[in-house]
């Protein structure tokens, strides 16, 4: 079990800086997820921790030791690759044995370890199969098994589930969470799938263009996104945004004027903001409420019925679309006129620079 600390890590390829100074500390037993759109640098950052990419500047500490110049195999890490990267010419047993053999572990001990791990991952019937004879899910298990037998201080996962079909992905997600609870090893997990991030992580690191946008627990990111990017990235379907004019505020909240002229009083602080400034209001689809009449009315354009829930896309008079998530039995149809209620406690306000206003009260689950 180990801690990992990143101190102002940077990576430059030729002349382009890809990782722009990332600092982060990861506690023992913590499950940390790096998430972000493709090209945000999350995989590069993981590979820098693994030792597969050089660190241009900054310090990487594992258990307090600086390991910038330590060979990947000597950092005490194990990695599961997106493509599994099993050795195609070796059977499952030999795949798991390879690292142990290189480390000079005696034969009997190797056998005992591999058999134990194979039992845990239900790989026993396949120990003498080549990777080519296995299904995607089984290969994934072997890749995980190969990581576990080495008994690493830290597990690294690079989008391990993205090659699996949706059903298997859901199943593996649960298995990985259970495995992490059982092994209690520090884990760093890279994904672009926010569902994986939300469900598995103790701590999520949202990355964009080589910088950290926010670090926090899943619910912290959900309830208190630090800026527009995180607000848009976390949550599905994504948060609705529309512009408004800031009117004034105090310790109890801030008032904004919406485009239809109505005023919204949101419980967020707005220190130093001048009245008249253009701000962005954000509200998640699951927080908007439908009403048959009232202010904020628009016309239903599309209805997506998912069974348990229904997504109603409403076109507002100013042309913007607002998505409302409501229950599956709602009778609203397309082309009908509906009114929207925006509960102020669930609204977010963003300054012109994209930063969120501090909420007056933290959400109880995201304290």
């Amino acid at each position, binding site marked *: 079990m180990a801690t990992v600390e990143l101190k102002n890590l940077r990576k430059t390829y030729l002349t382009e800086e890809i990782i722009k100074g990332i600092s982060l500390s990861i506690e023992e037993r913590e499950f940390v997820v790096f998430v972000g759109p493709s090209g945000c640098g999350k995989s590069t950052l993981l590979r820098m921790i693994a*030792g*597969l990419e050089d660190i241009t500047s900054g310090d990487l500490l594992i258990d307090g030791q600086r390991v910038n110049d330590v*060979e990947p195999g000597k950092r005490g*890490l194990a*990695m599961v690759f997106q493509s599994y990267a099993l*050795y195609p010419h070796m059977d499952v047993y030999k795949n798991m044995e*390879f690292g142990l053999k290189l480390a000079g572990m005696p034969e009997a001990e190797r056998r005992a370890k591999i058999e134990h791990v194979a039992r845990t991952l239900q790989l026993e019937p396949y120990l003498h199969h080549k990777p080519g004879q296995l299904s995607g899910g089984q290969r994934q298990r072997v890749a995980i098994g190969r990581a576990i037998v080495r008994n690493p201080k830290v597990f690294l996962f690079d989008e391990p589930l993205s090659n699996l079909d949706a059903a298997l992905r859901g199943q593996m997600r649960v298995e990985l969470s259970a495995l992490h609870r059982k092994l209690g090893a520090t884990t760093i997990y890279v994904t672009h799938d926010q569902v994986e991030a939300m469900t598995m992580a103790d701590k999520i690191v949202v990355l964009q263009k080589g910088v950290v946008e926010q670090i926090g627990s899943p619910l912290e990111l959900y309830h208190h996104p630090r800026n527009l990017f995180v607000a848009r990235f976390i949550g599905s379907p994504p948060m609705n945004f529309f512009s408004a004019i800031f009117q004034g505020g105090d310790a109890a909240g801030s008032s904004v004027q919406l485009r239809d002229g109505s005023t919204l009083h949101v419980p967020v602080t707005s220190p130093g903001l001048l009245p008249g400034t253009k701000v962005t209001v954000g509200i998640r689809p699951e927080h908007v409420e439908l009403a048959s009449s009232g202010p904020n009315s628009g016309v239903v354009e599309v209805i997506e019925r998912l069974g348990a829930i229904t997504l109603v896309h409403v076109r507002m008079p100013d042309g913007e679309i607002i998505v409302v998530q409501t229950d599956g039995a709602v009778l609203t149809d397309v082309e009908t006129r509906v009114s929207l209620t925006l509960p102020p406690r669930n609204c977010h306000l963003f300054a012109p620079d994209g930063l969120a206003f501090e909420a007056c009260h933290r959400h109880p689950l995201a304290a």
Partner: protein
Amino acid sequence: MALKTKTSTRIGVTILAWGIALWLFFPIFWMILTSFKSDVQAISSPPKLVFMPTLSSYAEVFERASYWHFALNTMIVSVGATAIAIALAVPAAYSMAFMPSKRTRSTLLWMLSTRMLPPVGVLVPIYLLARNTHLLDTCTGLAIVDMLTNLPIIVWMLYTFFREVPAPILEAGRMDGATRWQEMTMVLLPLALPGIASTALLSLILCWNEAFWSLNLTSSNAAPLTAFIASFSSPEGLFFGKLSAASTLAVAPILIFGWISQKQLVRGLTFGAVK
């Protein structure tokens, strides 16, 4: 309609392929045929297609020159040059494929460009170098020159094969604690073995057929089969029966070898291109 066009195209392509194959094979066929004629029959005009086959040419060839001496030299030189070339090219191609630098591409092109140089352009310096290092007329000397002429092609081919091996598999090896050497020998080489085999095969064939350097750098001790053929082409006019018999004997081993391994060879040469 589309199906019909496809079928007719296929027949056309098949005929064309057979035509080219037979056209290319004809000289070899003619050579083998001539080797079973007497010298008189061999030069008769019009050429005889129906004749009493005779082994007299072969008998005379064996009488006049020691075939096995030449054949052994060719084998030593081909196998030796190929082995050294592979041993040097594997690490070179490995570093170029998996740790490319800004100049990898141009280095590869430059290496290939040395193949474009007419060998005669460096005949004198190579000859002098061989003489001064006492490598003239030795298998070692010839093997070194053959190895160097083929090295660019071998590095290129191995580079192409190695590029097909997914990098994460090697990285997994590194995460498992493998050193660069272990990564190359225990992970990369087993995976690229088919490619390495076909590269070695090609090198073997090229060395076997190499005539320019073997004729210029050897005389008797290290003379390979190409010199053996040449020795039948010059004296007292041309005896086509004997020349054909000698040539057939010289190319037979590599021809048979190539036939046996053709699947491997074709697979190797079209690797990547058809994928």
